[in-house]
């Protein structure tokens, strides 16, 4: 096993890796930007190396600076965390070229999965189901009809240059194709200057379900079940859970098998996640994330396996040491991401200094966080501040526990998405497991909540009165000066004759 590793990341994930490494007796090297000199990951590591600058490009994304830090501290391996350089094949190659172990998949696997078109082609060849559709644009209505016949209705017409929902038309049946094609092409032409369209199967009420996989260097591989990640907005996940309320044992086994097949097709190694879109009992490959995921703790909670420990062991060349039948699932786990954002204002980012912090506690509540009082939440880095993870014997217990934990949590100084998560956790559709990726965006999070409104009103009035009283007592700056000076003089401990005598006598 390694004696010393470098963690090329910051925030909660750097701390997450440090924690497991310390438990394994491995020394940790942290790297930090100027603003992160007092960050928790900097303080909790054994060695910390400054990366001068604040922008990600001059710090956590600077490959040369990070490799220099690894060489200078004789780190034997580099863990990239998630984000920053985690899915950068060039970085992985440079790390290996520097004869430092790369705690991640082979660079070629990162590349293959990093490109949407390449990965789709490889997956098709490997027999992994992808969303039925053509890879080339269709030119006219007859071509679209012919293609749709093969793909199956309902069809989504998508702008080749598309994005942001513009130029998308849902075609439920062949009769509707002609007018849909015309309007979609027109919209695409005016929005993007490119009227070409793709045809793809339209997935009704899709859910985002992903499978955790782990591969070693000795041909062993296991999947660690699924994670349900459908509670998201603008593709940003808010709540994740394991198991998914709609996945049964048979589907779980099938999805796990397909996920392993996807990994094998790119000679995968280490921890990875295969994302699927699920719709009406069918599931289709979306993409593979070639790194540890933000939401990995829910898998750890139900399987009892430390995924970072497995990552380190695999990177050190050890065999996995356990087989598929050894991976078992117990109970239900939920994670809520605490982001600096304002759900009442369409999740606009929120910045500030963390003034006030109260963490939840109690049984089966886990906090993965880089938060501390005094932390300045700016715009330079990811708005995710913390993750609250709970475990329960079943889903209902886990939901009740998460509600309780979020009611205990208070992060002051910025607004967070926690109230939105509470609203979801209390929504009947969520509780019954009947939801899709649109649930969060369809909820009205600005609706006033009457509970405890009276308490809030009274609290605010008292707060104002106390502020006014404090201001009145503080007096003006002019009044305060002589009083403060007197206080300072009386508290200054330079030896005056009488003070010296008093201290000597004590």
């Amino acid at each position, binding site marked *: 096993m390694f004696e010393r590793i470098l963690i090329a990341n910051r925030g909660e994930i750097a701390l997450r890796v440090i924690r497991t490494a310390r438990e394994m007796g491995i020394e940790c090297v942290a790297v930090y930007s100027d603003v992160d000199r007092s960050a928790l990951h900097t303080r909790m590591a054994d060695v910390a190396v400054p990366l001068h600058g604040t922008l990600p490009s001059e710090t956590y994304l600077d490959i040369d600076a990070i490799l220099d830090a690894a060489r200078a501290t004789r780190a034997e391996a580099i863990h990239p965390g998630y984000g920053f350089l985690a899915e950068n094949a060039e970085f992985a190659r440079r790390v290996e070229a520097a004869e430092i172990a790369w705690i991640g998949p082979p660079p070629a696997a990162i590349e293959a999965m990093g490109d949407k078109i390449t990965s789709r082609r490889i997956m098709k060849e490997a027999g992994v189901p992808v969303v039925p559709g053509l890879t080339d644009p269709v030119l006219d209505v007859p071509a679209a009809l012919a293609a749709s016949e093969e793909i199956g209705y309902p069809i989504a017409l998508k702008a080749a240059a598309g994005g942001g929902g513009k130029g998308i038309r849902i075609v439920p049946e062949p009769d509707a194709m002609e007018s849909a094609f015309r309007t979609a092409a027109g919209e695409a032409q005016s929005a993007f200057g490119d009227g070409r369209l793709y045809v793809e199967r339209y997935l009704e009420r899709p859910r985002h379900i992903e499978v955790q996989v782990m591969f070693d260097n000795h041909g062993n591989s296991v999947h660690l079940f699924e994670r349900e990640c459908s509670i998201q907005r603008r593709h940003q996940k808010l709540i994740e859970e394991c198991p998914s309320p709609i996945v049964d044992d048979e589907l779980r086994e099938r999805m796990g098998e397909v996920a392993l097949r996807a990994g094998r097709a790119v000679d995968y190694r280490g921890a990875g996640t295969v994302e699927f879109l699920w719709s009406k009992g069918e599931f289709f490959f979306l993409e593979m994330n070639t790194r540890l995921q933000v939401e990995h703790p829910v898998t750890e909670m139900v399987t009892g396996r430390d995924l970072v420990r497995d990552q380190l062991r695999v990177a050190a060349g050890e065999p996995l040491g356990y087989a598929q039948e050894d991976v078992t699932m117990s109970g239900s786990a939920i994670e809520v991401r605490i982001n600096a954002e304002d759900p009442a204002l369409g999740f606009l*980012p929120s910045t500030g200094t963390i003034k006030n912090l109260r963490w939840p506690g109690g049984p089966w509540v886990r906090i993965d966080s880089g938060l501390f009082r005094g932390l300045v939440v700016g715009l330079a880095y990811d708005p995710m501040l913390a993750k609250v993870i709970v475990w329960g014997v079943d889903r209902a217990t886990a939901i009740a526990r998460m509600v309780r934990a979020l009611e205990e949590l208070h992060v002051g100084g910025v607004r967070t998405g926690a109230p939105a998560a509470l609203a979801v956790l209390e929504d009947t559709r969520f509780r019954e497991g009947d939801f899709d990726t649109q649930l969060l965006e369809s909820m009205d999070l600005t609706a*006033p909540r009457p509970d405890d409104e*009276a308490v809030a009103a009274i*609290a*605010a009035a*008292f707060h104002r009165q106390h*502020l006014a009283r404090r201001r009145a007592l503080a007096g003006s700056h002019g009044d305060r000066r002589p009083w403060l000076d007197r206080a300072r003089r009386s508290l200054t401990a330079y030896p005056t004759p009488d003070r010296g005598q008093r201290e000597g006598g004590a």
Partner: protein
Amino acid sequence: MKYYVSVNGREHTVDITEVAGVPVVELDGERAEVSYHEVDRLGQVAMVVDGKTFAVSIEGGADAVDVSVAGRSYHVELEDDRERAAHAAERAGGAKTGVVKSVMPGIVVRILVAEGDTVEEGQPLLILEAMKMQNEIAAPANATVRSIHVTENSAVSGGEKLVTLE
């Protein structure tokens, strides 16, 4: 002292008077037994209202605060009699137009309107990028763009003037 309190947009009145050092509270005209104790100077408060206890957190200044009760956040705005009269006069003067300010620090990516343009309520005025996300800043009401205070690619701080509408 009587306060007009708006909690997430809903109006209440809170009247706090002191009788022999003990606060007497009326909420919307009804007496409430309240104990308010600051746990620290950071905003954590232990409150008892009519026998029920609450762990409350408060942040903000005299006229607007964020109050958290059991994980839910309430945005509260307060006015006393004098402020209420002043604000009423202001509102009568011209509703919802005026200066559009940045609600957060960020970078102006694109400006979508020009001075003299007429805009409709909800029409995007400019795109502000913050935390790697692009956010459209929309017109709060039908109006005419009088002046634009920022340029594309300029950095703005929270509360900075973006556009003046009239």
